[in-house]
């Protein structure tokens, strides 16, 4: 058969490699800064764009989409053409993919710290950036699918199945979760509200973990581990079973992020069942990865690449054992809202994603630069720093999470909360927060060693811009006689469609009843839309990222009802675009902050002083001060548009209310400000803090005023 000659382009892989390293260190440094802010809350005193609530989304977005995202593209653009024996379909699309992605990252860095956010975790970016993400992602998808169509191999190797599933699912997740109506160029409201928004968000959030942090990396594992060990994957048949079960099961598991919340029980039950089943395909992947090294363990001792792969895959196994465990309602009752979650995700991010990425980079460097790695010793040192750093990061946080949760739940013999003061439970775990900083520092120093190796290896070697290869041409008719799975494997477009169907089933079964059946969200007649001032205040709450530390979801436990007040109901959040249930309680829950008698209820003057100087009100507080809320004037020019968008979303403001909304706003602001002035606080009606106080005093007030629940159904 005639051999055709073609070349592989290493330039695009190198560009993504450099971007991975650059954004990796940025993401981690931001993480270090916010970890420091938790132990030194006044570290960036008064600098709004460096406050914890603004930077935490930057850290998570940078770690996920910038560091891991670039690593995914690096690995795919290197492995895809080699597995298919063909060049990447279009170099132009590769370039658009690269520069578009970097532009998106830069726009995230320029918006998130300045408070431009949707207020949904890991989906904080505002609508113009969301559109850009969709476009660049589709460009990547075209390149991926077209390269697969133009291949010279008959079979499509399993790694590419994972790449295709990644492309399809992330596209669906991103588009469905990001649908919103713009208010202005950098402000929008999601179309979903309350528990429905929560369901969509955690379907997205959980599957971002699944299809952005897991499936592409499993694909990369199936290429780079065999390469580095110079052995084929342990069981190819296992990889087929584990691929299809993994993508099918993962999509159902999102509701385990909302256990004991106001989400209907049947959705929670689905989430638990599928999360528990997920351990099987997850461990199928781990076992396949580790057993690929059978007979090569002697190499693991010397080769930093294999060492990193082993620790990475083991971390994957640990995290995917822990995931189903955390999805059990009894465990979740303890773990949820605590640092246990933070520890769990960092085993995944630092261990699985981090280690695999570093391993791939150390493996690629000598090949891209046609030389030896500049220093294997340094790479080994990196391995140890990363491993110990990860442990120093996670173990203290496991300890902190469990300790704090048990303190929240502890009662005295007389039946009172043993630690009614939230602050006591925070002080108890602060030493663990210091240890976390130390762990992070170790991990980052490892990355510094990586950067040195990247630069030095590039200096001593010569870059191989293109590599030549040859293979016989592929005849599509050769698959026409195949049956079953082999037929699907031979047809990338059909394969993509089947993958799309498989990942859609879980979402549809959960969404359709949630959106269609009214009994799933019982309405409460006492719950009315926010006043214009409260709405503006809520937008400041979103802008400052308060949800990063404060939940708004009282779970139906005696310890929580005692501490905060009546447990949260689905009907309370029907006008919440977006929902603000939160996922972490670094500070107390605020769902009942507006209910007199709740332990978290405080007078207006307290809030004013607390925003200005939290440590003056609670000396041990780790909340940062918000002096800019006191200084800045509220922008009320946006009120009419915001009311109109809310009306379009179905919030029942009266017709024409947008025209008079600001009158009501000024009236309410004057009332609050006058109250503060009566207590001797010098403040204008127009300041942002007034709107913020109005919003906080509204939380939970509706059903409290009504006295008891009245369901209209």
């Amino acid at each position, binding site marked *: 058969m005639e051999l055709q000659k073609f070349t592989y382009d290493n330039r695009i892989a190198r560009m993504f490699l450099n971007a991975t390293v650059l954004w990796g260190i940025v993401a981690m440094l931001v993480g270090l800064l916010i970890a420091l802010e938790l132990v030194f809350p006044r570290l960036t005193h008064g600098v709004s764009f460096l406050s914890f609530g603004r930077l935490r989304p930057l850290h998570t977005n940078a770690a996920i989409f910038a560091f891991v995202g670039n690593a995914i593209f690096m690995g795919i653009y290197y492995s895809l053409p*080699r*597995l298919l024996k063909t060049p990447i379909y279009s170099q132009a699309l590769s370039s658009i993919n690269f520069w578009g992605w970097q532009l998106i990252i830069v726009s995230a860095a320029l918006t998130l710290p300045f408070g431009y956010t949707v207020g949904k975790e890991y989906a904080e970016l505002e609508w113009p950036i969301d559109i850009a993400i969709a476009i660049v992602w589709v460009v990547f998808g075209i390149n991926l699918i077209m390269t697969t169509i133009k291949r010279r*191999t008959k*079979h499509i*190797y*399993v*790694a590419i199945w994972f790449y295709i599933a990644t492309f399809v699912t992330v596209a669906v997740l991103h588009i469905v979760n990001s649908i919103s109506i713009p208010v202005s160029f950098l402000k929008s409201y999601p179309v979903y509200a309350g528990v429905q928004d929560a369901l969509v968000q955690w379907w997205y959030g959980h599957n971002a973990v699944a299809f952005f942090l897991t499936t592409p990396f499993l694909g990369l594992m*199936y*290429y780079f581990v*065999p*390469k*580095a060990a*110079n*052995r*084929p*994957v342990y*069981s*190819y*048949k296992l990889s*087929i*079973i584990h691929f*299809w*079960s993994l993508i*099918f*099961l993962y999509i159902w598991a999102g509701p385990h992020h909302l256990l004991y919340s106001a989400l209907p029980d*049947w959705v929670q*039950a*689905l989430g638990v*069942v*599928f999360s528990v*089943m997920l351990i099987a395909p997850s461990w199928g992947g781990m076992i396949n990865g580790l057993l690929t090294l059978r007979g090569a363990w002697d*190499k693991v001792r*010397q*080769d*930093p*690449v294999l060492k990193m792969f082993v620790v990475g895959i083991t971390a994957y196994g640990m995290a995917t054992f822990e995931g189903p465990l955390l999805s059990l309602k009894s465990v979740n009752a303890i773990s949820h809202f605590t640092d246990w979650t933070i520890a769990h995700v960092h085993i995944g991010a630092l261990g699985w994603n981090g280690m695999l990425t570093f391993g791939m980079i*150390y*493996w690629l460097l*000598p*090949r891209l630069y*046609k*030389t*030896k*790695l500049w220093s294997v010793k340094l*790479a080994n040192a990196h391995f140890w720093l990363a491993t110990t750093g990860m442990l120093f990061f996670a173990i203290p946080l496991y300890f902190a999470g469990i300790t704090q949760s048990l303190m929240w739940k502890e009662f005295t013999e007389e039946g009172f909360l043993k630690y009614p003061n939230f602050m006591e439970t925070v002080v108890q775990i602060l030493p663990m927060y210091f240890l976390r900083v130390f762990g992070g520092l170790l991990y980052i120093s490892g990355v510094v060693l990586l950067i040195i190796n990247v630069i030095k290896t590039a200096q001593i070697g010569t870059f191989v811009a293109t*590599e*030549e*290869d*040859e293979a016989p041409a592929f005849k599509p008719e050769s698959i026409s006689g195949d049956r*079953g*799975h*082999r037929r699907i494997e031979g047809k990338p477009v059909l394969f993509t469609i089947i993958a799309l169907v*498989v990942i859609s089933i*879980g979402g549809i*079964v959960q969404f*359709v*009843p949630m959106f*269609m*059946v*009214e009994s799933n969200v019982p309405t409460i007649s006492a719950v009315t839309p926010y006043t214009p001032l409260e709405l503006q205040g809520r937008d400041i709450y979103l802008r400052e990222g308060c949800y990063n530390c404060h939940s708004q979801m009282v779970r139906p436990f005696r310890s929580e009802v005692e501490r905060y007040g009546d447990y949260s109901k689905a009907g309370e959040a029907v006008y919440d675009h977006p929902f603000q249930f939160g996922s972490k309680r670094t500070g107390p829950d605020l769902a009942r902050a507006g209910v007199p008698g709740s332990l978290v209820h405080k007078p207006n003057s307290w809030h004013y002083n607390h925003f200005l100087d939290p440590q003056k009100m609670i000396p041990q507080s780790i909340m940062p001060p918000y002096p800019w809320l006191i200084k800045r004037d509220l922008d009320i020019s946006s009120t009419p548009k915001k009311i109109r968008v809310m009306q379009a979303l179905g919030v029942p403001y009266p017709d024409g209310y947008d025209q008079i909304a600001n009158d009501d706003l000024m009236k309410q602001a004057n009332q609050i400000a006058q109250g503060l002035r009566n207590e001797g606080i010098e403040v204008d009606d127009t300041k942002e803090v007034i709107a913020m106080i109005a919003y906080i005093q509204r939380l939970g007030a509706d059903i409290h005023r009504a006295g008891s629940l009245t369901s209209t159904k």
Partner: protein
Amino acid sequence: MRLARNVLEGVVGLEIFPIIGFIIFFAFFIGLIIWVVRMNSKDADDYSHMPLDMDNEESLSHNGNKS
């Protein structure tokens, strides 16, 4: 939309959704197992060698950092 909502609201026993979900998965999984068991082992072995199947691998590996 309104119509669909009314129809779905009338559906009795939404509680069986988890069971339906499980049955769908179970059927899917059994089908998959049958597929894979019937798969030709020689083919599977060939496929698993695809990443290693590079003519210039030899020349690259001793430039690499491995011993």
